[in-house]
């Protein structure tokens, strides 16, 4: 017993350490070292790793405040040391002042701005470089045609190196958090895959009605998985019907059931009765000389695949079940399997 417990503990430790090493590796996902500002770059990496390590955790204001403020102060110092003789020094100081203010509010992972150095997007004849932290809308700028910008290193080289050095404070977090978000999106995509594999096939009209009636769910301001209910409108199914009062030899016949309107809870986890179930107002059309061709009643669908219905043909009762659904369903699953292979081919390695 003791041996089994020890063995279990060993496995647990191995698995846990594997996860933590993996996470740590990913928090080392930095851009290559720039040609200038190495000290700032290294400082930025230290903060970057610390922020990245908090992925999935709530960060209290004090925990990383010192590192964040220290990095912003180091940035300020770097600007003073390296840019104080440039014409764009004051513009840089304005940017740094904004960043320092932000850092003193503590690490907010929803508000980690990039420092961007860009050309004028709206005028390609403009020779200026623009720079800013992109959490606010105030730019600094410098003319790349100016004398100071044509010395070595050029303004562009210096600002690009500064951009790389600064942005490491957030870069590993951006990548790792986007990976975590992608996993959440994959959960949604898999639930849609499951919907298309398991739920009932729909015509375009069924899909239109379902979309309309589930519009509030589908148009939420976030990505969502499939709706829990499918709706049906003038939906045809092939059935076998038995009318016991028909003349001998004609009791059991093939027919067409039409669900005028219906609903199906396709997912057993959210179905009101614990299994996928649907109910529809339906008519059936068949051909018997002694019984009215059309009958009207209700149809129930179980497990998204098997339907049973009752219809009244004038005075005669008819009971029917769906047929050949298994064949259709198999074909459908094959198609989705083929489709999923295509998705795998499209995966970016």
């Amino acid at each position, binding site marked *: 017993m003791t041996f089994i417990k020890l063995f279990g503990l060993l496995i647990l430790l191995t698995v846990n350490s594997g996860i933590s090493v993996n996470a740590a590796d990913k928090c080392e996902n930095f851009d290559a070292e720039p040609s200038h500002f190495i000290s700032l770059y290294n400082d930025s990496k230290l903060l970057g790793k610390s922020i990245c390590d908090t*992925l*999935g955790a*709530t960060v209290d204001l004090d925990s990383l405040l010192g590192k964040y403020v220290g990095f912003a102060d180091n940035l300020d110092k770097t600007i003073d040391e390296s840019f104080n003789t440039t014409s764009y020094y004051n513009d840089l100081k304005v940017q740094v002042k904004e960043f320092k203010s932000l850092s003193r509010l503590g690490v907010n*992972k*929803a508000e*980690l*701005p990039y420092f961007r150095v*860009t*050309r004028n*997007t*709206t005028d*390609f*004849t403009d020779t200026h470089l*623009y720079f800013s932290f*992109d*959490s*606010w*809308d105030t*730019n600094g700028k410098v003319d790349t045609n100016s004398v100071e910008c044509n010395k070595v290193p050029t303004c562009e080289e210096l600002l690009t190196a500064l951009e790389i050095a600064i*942005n490491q404070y957030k870069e590993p977090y*951006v*990548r*790792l*958090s*986007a*990976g975590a*978000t*992608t996993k959440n*999106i994959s959960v949604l*995509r898999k639930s*849609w895959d499951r919907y298309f594999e398991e739920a009932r*096939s729909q*015509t*375009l009209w069924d*899909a239109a009605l*379902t*979309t309309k009636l589930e519009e509030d769910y*589908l*148009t*939420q*301001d*976030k*990505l969502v*998985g*499939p709706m829990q209910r499918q709706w049906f409108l*003038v939906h045809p199914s*092939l059935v076998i019907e038995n009318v016991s009062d028909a003349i001998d030899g004609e009791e059991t016949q093939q*027919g*067409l059931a039409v669900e005028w309107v219906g609903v199906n809870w396709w997912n057993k986890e959210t179905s009101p009765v614990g299994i996928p179930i649907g109910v529809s107002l339906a008519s059936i*059309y068949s*051909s018997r000389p002694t019984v009215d*061709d*059309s009958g009207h009643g209700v149809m129930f669908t179980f497990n998204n695949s098997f339907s049973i219905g009752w219809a009244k043909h004038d005075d005669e009762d008819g009971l029917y079940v769906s047929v050949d659904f298994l064949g259709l369903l198999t074909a*459908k699953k094959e*198609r989705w399997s083929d489709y999923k292979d*295509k998705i795998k*081919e*499209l*995966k*970016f390695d």
Partner: protein
Amino acid sequence: MSTKPIVVLIHGMGTHTAPKPKSNERGSFGNECINTFNAAFQMYPSLENDKIENKVDFIEIHYNHIFDNFRKEMAENGQTFNDLLQGAGILAKIPGLVNKVIEFESSLGNDEFFNTHWLDVILYKLYFGEYVRVHVAEKLGEIIAKNGSKNIHILAHSLGTAVAHDTLSKLYNDGYADNDDIADLSPVTHKLSSVWQIANVSCLANSVMPVANPYKSLVKPGSAGVTDTMMNIHHKFDPFTLPKKFVRPDNGKWIPSNVFKTKYKDIETSAITQVNTHSITQYLHDPSVHLYLFNALGIKIPPKSQRDKAEEAYKSLVIDKAEAKLKKKLNGLVKTNAATLKDYVDAGNRLMKFIESMGV
């Protein structure tokens, strides 16, 4: 991880072959874009010896196969019913409405223009659209997880502009937190570099069963938006962009005026060098478009003398009398904000008639 800017390509309606990244094969939309950019490089001596792939990485997000799959499944189901009902001899006994539903479904398998183009729009507006958005968001998430978001540029065309807008609008969230199950990103922390909406139909697509209002969503440039910069590009005679077109005035309401002036660009082209004015190649080959894109991607803009010559050369490709003929065809098209998807179909039909009249 790429050190080059990354352009994420999102195609429009119609048939597009899928890329196969594993075997390094481009999809048809990727080929169209890249070949046109390289043709544009040939217009300038300073770029003619280079290839755009040396300066930019392109990644295609393909969704056409999703629509194709639904279309085929519906058609097969419809056809199966049709065959079985004919075999059972009960077609004559069922109401006409039911017959029409079955006939319509079985016709979806035909490779007619309606099925391969308009049906994409219809399917996108139904719940299949959310599946497409989830698929596109998943691919975009993979790209950001690998490369960060700072150097990501999105180039979307036609229906792809609605797909891109709606996906980004749902994916990015002001209330982002990393310790919940919501599949989202932050408009600040994960901000993209640029979004290029070419032949933008996002307003029209959101006029029915709206996902997000393009004038109010987070898909805008600047500090409050999902992207640092944004371009809205439309051709004066591209009928698809005329009904309910995306138009933003510089009044400080959508984005601050200084952001509007430096980070947003509305480009209207007018030269008709191809009869299909909606074509992505028509847009990208135009110097008034590709030069801005080159600039955003850090590609050195050719000097003015080269640009002037390229402009002249491009003008020489303009098709004689095409503008007057197309203007006539577009006469009476609903271009106002009151336009509906029906007007969109009308616009497409007019373009098709124009293309036919030009003998193409």
